[in-house]
């Protein structure tokens, strides 16, 4: 918790620290303004009140890691062996070093390490600047003080007299030379030869198991373009067979995985970022089932002697060693470590007598421990063997088949090499001298080791000879170089928090209440559209510190004498409290009605109450029930259909929706790539003493194509309304893409049931309908260098679709049958490093009888995705 707190506090300071200008605008706007899509003017106010929030992630994470490391006396990623390995490998492999723009637009999206690249590049660049210019100058750059420039890159130029991009270029050149020297240092001794088992790198890889019978390695894999999965790697030809998707994978480890070699069963975990489930998988039949739901157990190790699984359970900050006996329907607590001691990477010897574990102490020291399972079950946690790795991590230690050794990896000398620990003698032998790094060893009977070799595209299964060596090359750490040059960094060590006199600092204790903590958050002028007029007004936001109860009130006025006087005033109110929503509006205005044909502003007043109940949350599976009630008065148009006149001016509507989604995608995706989603909705409109109920349902199903990030979707919908066919309340209306020229709704509006590109908005009505859309999402195009770091084009997403719609299916005399075919291209931009915008263009042609319009072109800019 200490280093997490140190890291996160840097983020707070980086955004909250204010110069005179921000202090002024925070007074003007009543606080720091959060940009909201409903009122895009808030983007400007956001920048005026929190300009350093508008910096790329590498900037924020880089400075946070740099400071966190030196606050911990040099223990951290700014002096980390993993970071050294990443950049050393890039130099060895002649991989691309991204520039700041390419990193944000592509490097953090398509690489197997995705956003971790922000940490890696950011930390490295900050360290380079500290090394070349001094830590003091680095702090002067990132600190927002009076006299500093608001924008992060402008301040860089002010402090260093150089463009940030030029300094980045200098760093890359410097890094190449620095890592060449490290490679030469490693090559002073014979480098361990290896033989790759796979033709390609496999991205992130879990602990792996070799099955001699099938000559396959079972492991979970996660690389760009394919959804994370458990796979079988053939040691004969290197081919990878996909066995089953992994729900909720993590980076690097993907999942916790173990293997029962007798019953040929793989055990693995899902929901690895949430509460982990334990599942089993038959690698032959691909059949899988959940054994323990939300068990929170990981670091699995199979005991071949009795068929039990050992694992580590995380609960409320505590790590507990557990045993899950066959048939794996319950777990038993074996031992709970005190808070701050963290065990990880378990293994059980083949005879079931011994268990190995790596253990981190609260002071940051790590050790490898070997314990008797019999002792553990008797409550004795004294290890029979123990090796202190100091500040280095002993990773993935596993028993040899004879149980005399444990093999694992460690950055003990700065490079991740394979080590063998002799349990009887306590001797630790190095078995490799790797240029990049070897991980996750699997000792084989023939003395060879299967290991995973690090590359810029992830881990590659490979074999090496398991021969002890004392000839290991040692590298130079950039962090060590910096602290040697600037010993004042040692003063950054904040030491233990144990001596902070917290009790004397506490000003109050009690229960946290929502109502009592609601405070004004910000207030600012807004512009909105009402029908074809402009309205000017003010928006006030309120919230509690956790933003569980956001509330806003907007009042505006249209000085348009063409409007009736009773339509010139506008007022809107919204309130959320957990799952509840309340709203009220009078002549509701909308910013986006200033642009384009789609209008959501409506005359009259409305009071609404809504509730969302999450019935299932098992990511990516979600089932939500939403219920809304609204009362409208003085209406002139239907609330959902702008081009349909309301026959009565009062309307009471109750709508209930049950919505399910189970959608998945692979690393580097720009859209959902497979899965299903459905919703069932019921609505009752009550007007002039008559009820007009309706029901409709949608079902989407899609699958990934072998083309990277390309998918096929079938989206279907059907519905029926009850009541007089001639009443607009008893009809569904369809037509148009539905996107406004400037918009904040879904950019893929043609996927919605009411959309029908090629015909005019609301042109097709029907008491009942059936509709289907066939959609092909083509492979997206990524852009590496299109724009500036503050405003750049990230990707282009092309799609083609064709739809069919039948309305009034029950009456041939009024039946409408239409089809269309169209295309849409979405261009994703990023503004101020954190605000995504999408420019969409589309064209569709509709076919059918009596169509008032046969084709449609659409262009739309979506503000904030």
């Amino acid at each position, binding site marked *: 918790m200490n280093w997490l707190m140190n890291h996160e506090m840097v983020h707070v300071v980086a955004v909250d620290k204010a110069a005179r200008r921000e202090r002024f605008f925070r007074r003007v706007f009543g606080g720091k303004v959060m940009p909201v899509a409903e009122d895009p003017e808030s983007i400007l106010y956001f920048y005026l009140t929190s300009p350093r929030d508008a910096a790329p992630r590498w900037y924020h994470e880089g400075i946070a890691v740099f400071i966190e490391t030196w*606050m911990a006396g040099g223990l951290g990623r700014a002096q980390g062996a993993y970071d050294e390995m990443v950049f050393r490998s890039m130099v060895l492999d002649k991989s691309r070093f991204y520039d700041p723009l390419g990193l944000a637009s592509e490097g953090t999206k398509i690489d197997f390490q995705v956003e971790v690249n922000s940490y890696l590049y950011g930390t490295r660049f900050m360290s380079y600047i500290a090394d070349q210019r001094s830590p003091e100058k680095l702090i002067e750059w990132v600190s927002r003080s009076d006299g500093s420039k608001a924008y992060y890159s402008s301040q860089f130029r002010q402090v260093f007299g150089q463009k940030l991009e030029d300094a980045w270029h200098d760093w890359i050149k410097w890094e190449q030379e620095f890592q060449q020297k490290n490679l030469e240092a490693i090559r002073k001794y014979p480098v361990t030869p290896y033989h790759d088992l796979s033709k390609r790198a496999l991205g992130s890889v879990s602990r792996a198991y070799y099955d001699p019978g099938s000559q396959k390695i079972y492991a979970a894999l996660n690389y760009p373009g394919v959804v994370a999965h458990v796979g079988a790697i053939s040691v004969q030809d290197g081919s990878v067979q996909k066995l089953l998707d992994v729900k909720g994978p993590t980076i690097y480890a993907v999942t916790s995985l173990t293997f029962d070699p007798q019953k040929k069963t793989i055990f693995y975990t899902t929901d690895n970022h949430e509460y982990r489930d334990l599942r089993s998988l038959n690698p032959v039949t691909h059949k899988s089932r959940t054994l323990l739901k939300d068990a929170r157990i990981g670091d699995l190790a199979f005991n071949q002697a009795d068929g039990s699984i050992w694992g580590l359970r995380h609960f409320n900050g505590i790590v507990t060693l557990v045993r899950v006996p066959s048939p794996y329907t319950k777990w038993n607590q074996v031992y709970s470590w005190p808070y701050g001691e963290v065990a990880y990477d378990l293994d059980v010897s083949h005879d079931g007598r011994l268990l190995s574990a790596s253990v981190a102490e609260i002071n940051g020291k790590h050790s490898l421990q070997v314990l008797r399972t019999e002792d553990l079950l008797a409550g004795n946690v004294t290890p029979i063997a123990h090796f202190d790795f100091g500040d280095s991590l002993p990773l993935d230690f596993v028993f040899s088949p004879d149980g005399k050794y444990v093999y694992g990896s460690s950055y003990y000398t700065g490079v991740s090499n394979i080590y063998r620990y002799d349990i009887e003698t306590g001797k630790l032998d190095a078995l490799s001298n790797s240029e990049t790094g070897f991980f996750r060893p699997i000792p084989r009977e023939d003395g060879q080791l299967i290991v995973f070799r690090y590359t810029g595209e992830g881990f590659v299964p490979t074999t090496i000879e398991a021969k002890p060596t004392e000839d290991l090359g040692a590298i130079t750490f950039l962090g060590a170089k910096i602290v040697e040059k600037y010993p004042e960094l040692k003063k950054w060590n904040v030491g233990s928090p144990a001596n902070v006199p917290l009790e004397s600092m506490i000003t109050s204790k009690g229960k946290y209440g929502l109502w009592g903590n609601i405070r004004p958050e910000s207030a600012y002028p807004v512009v909105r559209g009402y029908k074809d007029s402009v309205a000017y007004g003010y928006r006030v936001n309120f919230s509690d510190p956790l933003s569980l109860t956001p509330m806003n009130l907007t009042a505006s006025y249209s000085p348009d004498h063409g409007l009736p006087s009773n339509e010139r005033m506008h007022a809107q109110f919204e309130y959320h409290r957990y799952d509840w929503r309340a709203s009220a509006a009078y002549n509701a205005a909308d910013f986006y009605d200033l642009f384009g044909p789609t209008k959501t502003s409506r005359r009259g007043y409305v009071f609404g109450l809504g*509730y969302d109940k999450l019935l299932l949350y098992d990511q990516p599976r979600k089932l939500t029930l939403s219920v809304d009630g609204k009362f409208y008065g003085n209406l002139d148009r239907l609330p959902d259909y702008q081009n349909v006149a309301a026959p009565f001016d009062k309307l009471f509507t109750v709508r209930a929706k049950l919505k399910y989604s189970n959608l998945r995608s692979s690393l580097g995706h720009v859209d959902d790539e497979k899965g299903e989603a459905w919703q069932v909705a019921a609505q009752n409109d009550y007007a002039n003493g008559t009820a007009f109920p309706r029901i409709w349902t949608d079902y989407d199903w899609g699958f990934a194509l072998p083309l990277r990030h390309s998918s096929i979707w079938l989206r279907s919908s059907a519905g029926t309304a009850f009541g007089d066919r001639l009443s607009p309340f008893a009809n569904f209306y369809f037509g148009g893409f539905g996107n406004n020229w400037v918009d904040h709704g879904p950019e893929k509006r043609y996927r919605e049931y009411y959309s029908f590109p090629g015909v005019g908005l609301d042109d097709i009505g029907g008491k009942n309908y059936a509709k289907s859309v066939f959609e092909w999402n083509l492979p997206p195009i990524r852009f590496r260098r299109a724009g500036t770091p503050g405003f750049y084009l990230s990707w282009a997403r092309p799609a083609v679709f064709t739809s069919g719609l039948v309305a009034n299916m029950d009456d041939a005399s009024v039946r409408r049958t239409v089809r269309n075919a169209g295309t849409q291209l979405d261009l994703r931009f990023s503004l101020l490093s954190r605000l995504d915008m999408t420019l969409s263009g589309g064209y569709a042609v509709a076919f059918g009888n009596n169509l008032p319009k046969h084709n449609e072109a659409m262009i739309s800019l979506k503000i904030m995705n």
Partner: protein
Amino acid sequence: MRLATWVVPVALLIAAAPVPVRAQGLSEIETEDLRLLYRDPSQAYLVAHAGRCFENSMRFQRWLFGYVPSQKVTVLLNDFSDSGNASTAGTPRNLMLLETAPINFASRPSHLTSE
């Protein structure tokens, strides 16, 4: 028919009726710069440690940056994940969400300290 048509939405509304709305049993302590929220009693044992970590870090930030917070920092302790992590927002309010689960070293093959 009129009555029947109300049955589905009203029944769903009743089904959706929530437990009484409250701040999920959160307790808090406050210092000059900190509002620490936690679940009592399950996370009470972490409060002193979390508070000290915060104040220790804040003292350093004041020294290094000359930082004067514009408002208190709200820190919420959560146990919603099996992997320790955190996220922070500086806009519109200073808010830090801390997952109390241990760091998953298997997922972070780097040189880290756990505490």
